[in-house]
């Protein structure tokens, strides 16, 4: 096992918009190590979402290569991509994307169901990851009975359920207030310290500061890569709001 988790080589993606070709990504080559915490930023239309979709195996590149965990995943079928997502990648979304009317534990079990794990093992694993994000008391709550921060923790637990090599967080704090955002970022930081590789998309500089490295996108290319000093991390955000009680 090498220390490189993923590597892209001249990764490019074109879209047809009517009769016009849009070059969303114009050749991105990047290497991300195991245990890294990378923030991807840039204005809208910069190609960061396209980049994340490719890293998340939700899409295939027009050209270039993407090697994830020593496997070239740039030319796979839809079902093979689904399996890669299932086994290697955990997703955290801006709007949580939890199944409504479904208890937290079943939401967390969802990826495990698609990998065919036994029910009892699934329960055990789901309890474990829910405890890891501090929700051991809420495993049977439905999303509608939880605050935004709690819902996002459930989503993080779901992302962790299948022991992924990579967690992709797409604007994970976009729907949360400042204090809750900080809490969620602390959860991600803690996971990262425990060895999980995280790639975070955000347009908020304050949130990006929680990462170890920042990749700036513009016009489909990386224009800047910054490594943050470790000491910048914990107190990187000025808290302007009053902390809110998370319990609904």
């Amino acid at each position: 096992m090498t220390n490189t988790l993923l590597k892209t080589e001249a990764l490019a993606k074109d879209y047809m918009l009517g009769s016009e070709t849009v070059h969303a990504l114009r050749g991105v080559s990047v290497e991300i190590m195991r245990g890294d915490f990378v923030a991807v930023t840039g204005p809208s239309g910069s190609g960061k979402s396209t980049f994340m979709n490719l890293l998340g195996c939700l899409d295939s590149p027009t050209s270039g290569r993407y090697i994830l965990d020593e496997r070239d995943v740039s030319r796979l079928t839809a079902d093979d991509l689904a399996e890669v997502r299932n086994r290697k990648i955990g997703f955290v979304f801006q709007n949580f994307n939890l199944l409504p009317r479904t208890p937290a534990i079943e939401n967390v079990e969802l990826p495990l169901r698609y990998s065919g794990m036994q029910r009892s093992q699934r329960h055990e694993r789901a309890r474990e990851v829910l405890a890891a994000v501090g929700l051991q008391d809420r495993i049977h709550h439905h999303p509608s009975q939880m605050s935004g921060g709690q819902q996002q923790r459930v989503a993080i637990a779901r992302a962790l359920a299948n022991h992924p090599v990579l967690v992709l967080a797409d604007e994970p704090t976009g729907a949360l207030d400042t204090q809750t955002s900080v809490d969620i970022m602390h959860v991600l930081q803690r996971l990262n310290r425990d060895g999980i590789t995280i790639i975070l998309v955000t347009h908020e500089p304050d949130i990006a500061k929680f990462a170890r490295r920042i990749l700036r996108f513009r016009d489909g290319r990386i224009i800047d890569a910054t490594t943050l000093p470790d000491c910048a991390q914990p107190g990187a955000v000025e808290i302007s709001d009053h902390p809110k009680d998370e319990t609904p």
Partner: protein
Amino acid sequence: MMLLEPVRDAFRALRVNIMRSVLTTLGIIIGVGAVIVMVAVGAGAQAQVAEIINSMGADLLYVFPGSTTSRVRLGAGSLPTLTEEDAEAIQKEILEVQVVAPYIRGRGQIISGNQNWSTAIIGVTPEYFEAREWGLDNGRSFAAEEFRGNSKVVLVGNTVAQNLFPGQDPSGSIIRINRVPFKVTGVLQAKGYSMGGWDQDDLVLIPMAPARKKVLGERALSGRLVNGIAIKIKMPDLVSIAEKEIRELLRQRHRLRPSQENDFWIRNQTEALETRAESSRTMSLLLAAVASVSLMVGGIGIMNIMIVSVTERTREIGLRMAVGARRRDILMQFLTEAVALSMIGGLIGILLGVAGSMVFTAFGDWPAIIQPSAIAVAFTVSAAVGIFFGFYPARKASRLDPIDALRRE
């Protein structure tokens, strides 16, 4: 376990819009319910027909004198061609025959005190009772010597008894048949209505000799001519063979050339049964058409609602795909939901159909007989409808692009 969870998911999804789910399955409910009620009603009707035929005798053949081709065809019974000798020959020569009962028949006025009643008068031999398996409600049958002599005795049918002797036992009374006094010895068992709808109990039976000489004799029934011969065959299975042999025998006896048509008619009860079976087949076909239209409409309803559901839950589909659902996982999920929907409809339809059949039994003219096979078929068909009409929406869901699906609001 891996099978149960998708089913539970399906029910969870359907519970969200209970009203919508139930309304969607209305077509299936009506289709399945209608099939079960109508099959039950049809089976009940057929059972009743079978009962009627049994009362008339499934192993019974009737021979009537018929028309000739000579000049004008006058219809059954119009020509005096059948005699008691024909009956005796049939009894002697046809092995399958158990008993032969020639009879003469006419109509007449019956008077008892100040009551009168117009009915069929049948002159019979002792064999008639055996052939028709006809017993008595009251009194006694004719004695052997009463058949041999000229005894003026009569057995009255149930309808006649009720009209001339309401609430009384007529045995021993004297009635006048076409002005000739006869002594009533008993009342025949009720046989009910025949398939043709005539009342089999609206008649009186008298011995052949007085019928011929005193009551019906003025007609062209002199000599040994008869109006009909009832023939009981040993086993119902032998009826058609016996019928063929009797036809041959009578043609021979009547010296008909091969080019000539029969001068008699043979009627058997199974023919009538076949006619009934034929019309019930037509009925079933019509029913199947109605049911399939209803199930088709129900299926389209399910397809419609599943398309709506796929659209509403695009984000959920995207999420499931993101966490690793393959296309067939999504396909199965929505297919399961469609089948669950149509099977719920099928179950409600079955309950409704059974209830409807019970209501028909309580208020209808005959009992509806619920057919388990109809229930099984209805249930299977409703599941098949779910698979067939659920496939397109489910496939549509499974072909969604995960990025587009996740982005959808």
